[in-house]
Structures are given as structure tokens and as C-alpha cells.
């Protein structure tokens, strides 16, 4: 595993280096995906462009009314240890907390998790339900934003193309009476990749009886993380009774399109989706009602 190594100190320089590479160079954030892929010869590239010395790219902030701003290179552990993230965006906190190990999360970035575009990327479902947008430099150096749910193009592929760079992910401040939750299933309880995951966010009416708005996203059960739109339709404007949540679980199960692989069969993953969707909806509703306590880091 040998490659050219670049350490740009500005965005323009980084984009220029990637453009020159014409696909033969890749960005390097934490390296927890790309370094292993190169060592295993699962990825080919002649050069790595380290993004971590570009000012601002690893900065994050959480402001009242301003939502959560996550620079692409922010190590996951930074967010995990921030009370504002655990309290304000519990689904994202729950997803980050189970990624690899603590020593991994000190280097693995949120941006790398999205750009690696694995169907099982754990931060994707929560960011999708939280309505996050991804801001990036496109192949030509122009700046663009897309909702995170439109960021993925297939396993390992995103809208970025050869020379694109993800700059940040921005999560809007949640509306009142809103709760969110994430759960995943792994055969081992630590250091494993999800064979199915789900996140949900619900906003209740001011009386906290009915679901006004809802988003459900699933991981590891389709070529990209997906929204479970049919399941959302079944709970919107409804009272979140156990029956309604069960119906949503069943609909999500029908909508997903998992594969059989070494980690689990398609049938097993579908069954997991049904259960996980019910659980995340239930917990999101509890939080929206204000009676589901969040853990602190």
C-alpha cells in the first residue's frame, strides 16, 4: 500500500489536488474506512488528500435556534461528549455512540461516514430523519447543498463524484414537541456493523396526542440508507397507539429491500426492520412527550 500524500491547507488547494487526480486521488479524513480499504486492496488510489489541516473543516457548533453545524472532519467523539448533542439530537447521539470503539470515534469523522456511503453507515438514518443538509464543493468547485437523504447514490457512491468535497452537515433546530431515536441490531453487542438500523423523528401536536410530522429512515436494508415513506404515511395525523406503530413497522418491512449476506439473511433483516421501527417510533414519541429521558454521555 503506497500512495502520494498531500496536505492542503485550503479548500481550493484540496479541490485542485482532487481535480488533478481525475479520480485517482481520494480525500482522507479519519482514514478508518479508506486506510483499511487500501490495505486490503479493496480500493485503488494513487494519492490521499488529507483534509484535516484545512481550517474550519473539523469545527462544529450547536447554537440555540441555530441548529447543529458539523464540519465534515469532526471526529464523532467530539459530538458524543457534547451534552447539547445528546440532549438536542438524541438519535444522532445514539448512533454515534455505537460506532466502532471509543478509540475509533476519536478519529472517525461524520463526513467520512457519509462519504464512504455504506448502506449501514450509522449516522445516515438519524441525519436523514433530523432533516440535515449536506453542503459540498462539486466536481467543478462550485458550492451546493442537498438533503442528506439525497446524498447517496448507491453502495459506496454519493453525489460527490471524483473531485467533490463534503464541507459540512447542518441539522436544523427541532420544532417543539419533537422527539427522535435510533436503534440498530448487530450480532455482537460491540464492534460490529449493523445488519439493520432505524431512526425516527416525530413532532406531536401541542396537546401531544397526535403525530403531526414524522420521518423514518432505515439503514443496511437497501443499496443506500432509505426513508420509509409508506410507514410515515401510516402514522402521520394519527394517535401513536401500539397498533398504529405496529402498522408502520409492517409497512417499513415491506418497503425495504435487503440482501442475504454473511451477517444476516434478507428475511431476518426484514423482521428486524419491523421491530426496530416500532421501537424507535415508541421512543421518539416518549421523548416528544417529554417523558423519555435521554442518556448523558
Amino acid at each position, binding site marked *: 500500500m*503506497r500512495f*502520494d*500524500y498531500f496536505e492542503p491547507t485550503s479548500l481550493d488547494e484540496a479541490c485542485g489536488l482532487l481535480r488533478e487526480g481525475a479520480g485517482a486521488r481520494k480525500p482522507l479524513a479519519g482514514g478508518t474506512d479508506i486506510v*483499511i480499504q487500501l490495505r486490503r486492496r479493496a480500493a485503488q488510489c494513487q494519492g490521499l488528500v488529507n483534509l484535516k489541516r484545512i481550517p474550519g473543516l473539523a469545527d462544529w457548533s450547536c447554537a440555540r435556534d441555530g441548529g447543529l453545524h458539523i464540519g465534515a472532519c469532526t471526529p464523532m*467523539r467530539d459530538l458524543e461528549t457534547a451534552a447539547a448533542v445528546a440532549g438536542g439530537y438524541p438519535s444522532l447521539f445514539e448512533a454515534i455512540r455505537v460506532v*466502532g470503539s471509543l*478509540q475509533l470515534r476519536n*478519529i472517525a469523522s461524520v463526513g467520512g461516514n457519509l462519504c464512504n456511503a455504506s448502506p449501514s453507515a450509522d449516522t445516515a438514518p438519524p441525519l436523514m430523519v433530523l432533516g440535515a443538509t449536506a453542503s459540498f464543493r462539486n466536481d467543478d468547485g462550485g458550492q451546493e447543498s442537498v438533503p442528506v437523504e439525497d446524498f447517496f447514490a448507491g453502495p459506496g457512491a454519493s453525489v460527490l463524484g471524483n473531485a467533490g468535497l463534503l464541507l459540512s452537515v447542518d441539522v436544523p433546530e427541532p420544532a417543539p414537541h419533537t422527539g427522535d431515536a435510533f436503534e440498530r441490531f448487530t450480532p455482537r453487542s460491540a*464492534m460490529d456493523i449493523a445488519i439493520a438500523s432505524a431512526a425516527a423523528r416525530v413532532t406531536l401536536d401541542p396537546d401531544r396526542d397526535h403525530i403531526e410530522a414524522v420521518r423514518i429512515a432505515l439503514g443496511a436494508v437497501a443499496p443506500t440508507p432509505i426513508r420509509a415513506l409508506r410507514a410515515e404515511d401510516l402514522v402521520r395525523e394519527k394517535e401513536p397507539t401500539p397498533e398504529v406503530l405496529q402498522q408502520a413497522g409492517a409497512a417499513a418491512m415491506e418497503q425495504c429491500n435487503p440482501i442475504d449476506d454473511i451477517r444476516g439473511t434478507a428475511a431476518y433483516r426484514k423482521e428486524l426492520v419491523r421491530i426496530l421501527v416500532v421501537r424507535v417510533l415508541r421512543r421518539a414519541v416518549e421523548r416528544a412527550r417529554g417523558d423519555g429521558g435521554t442518556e448523558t454521555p
Partner: protein
Amino acid sequence: MKQRYVLRVNGRDLEAEAGAHESLLDVLRERLRLTGSKKGCNEAECGSCTVLLDGRPVVSCLVLVPDAADRDVVTIEALAEEGVPHPIQRQMVEQGGVQCGYCTPGMIMSAYALLRDNPDPTDEEIRFAISGNICRCTGYGKIVKAVRAAALEMKEQSGNGGAAS
């Protein structure tokens, strides 16, 4: 293509010739001969390569050496002070937390970072802090016990220190 890197390891500036593709772990082990950090998997799964980078525990097998340049690296070799083992090291020995010993340095580094930030952890918190370190011998029980005992010992030490001054 090799290059000269300066690494601040255990408080000293050390120079190493290495390629940019080499990991911090390989440079520590092969070039600087600091072999306390172990290579159990080279893929961040096992945690036996854990070192502190700017104070944070990281898997040094996935840190490329240019990323470690000009930053503070602390390895297991620095924990004992003037030949006196760190309380975690001593308790790992006394409580039977060391068997084959291969996971031990990485395990101790994770525990060290924990106790620095949280001097009075619950067993749950200890288990969480070492959950990225695999041990195949002990079953973890005695390691958790050792970290708990070390926390107590460190608290007593600092208490005594306070009383004496």
C-alpha cells in the same frame, strides 16, 4: 518515498524516516523501537495498539504517520514514572488482570484516559471505556476490578497528597 517526521512521543521529540502510508503504530514499533503498543489486527478491531494522541485514546494502527507529526503521542512506556508503575499497571498485576499480556498495554491506555477524565467511574463506565479493547484470556472481570482498584488508589493518593501539603 521516505520522509523525515518529528514525533513528540512521551514528551520527547523523536525523528523517524517513514513513508506517508506507514501507520503511527508501525513507526513507533519498527523505527522508534517502542514495542509496548501491540499489533493484534491492524484494523482497529482489537485495541491493542491504543495510544493517546493529543490526549485522546486512538487506534494507532489507523493513524498515518504524517497525521501524528507535531502532535503529542503518549504510549504505555511513559506511564511508569521513575520506575514506579502507574496504579493501573500495579493493580492489573495484583488483581490478576494480566494473563498473556498482549492486550494489556492497550487496555491500560484506555483505562488511563478514562481515569484522567473520570476519577470515580462506575463499573458500567469502566466497561464502556475498555469496550474497544479485546482480551481473550481474562473474561474482563479482573480487568474491571483492577481499574476500579486503581481509581481508589489514585483517589487515596491525591487525598493524602492534599493532606500533606
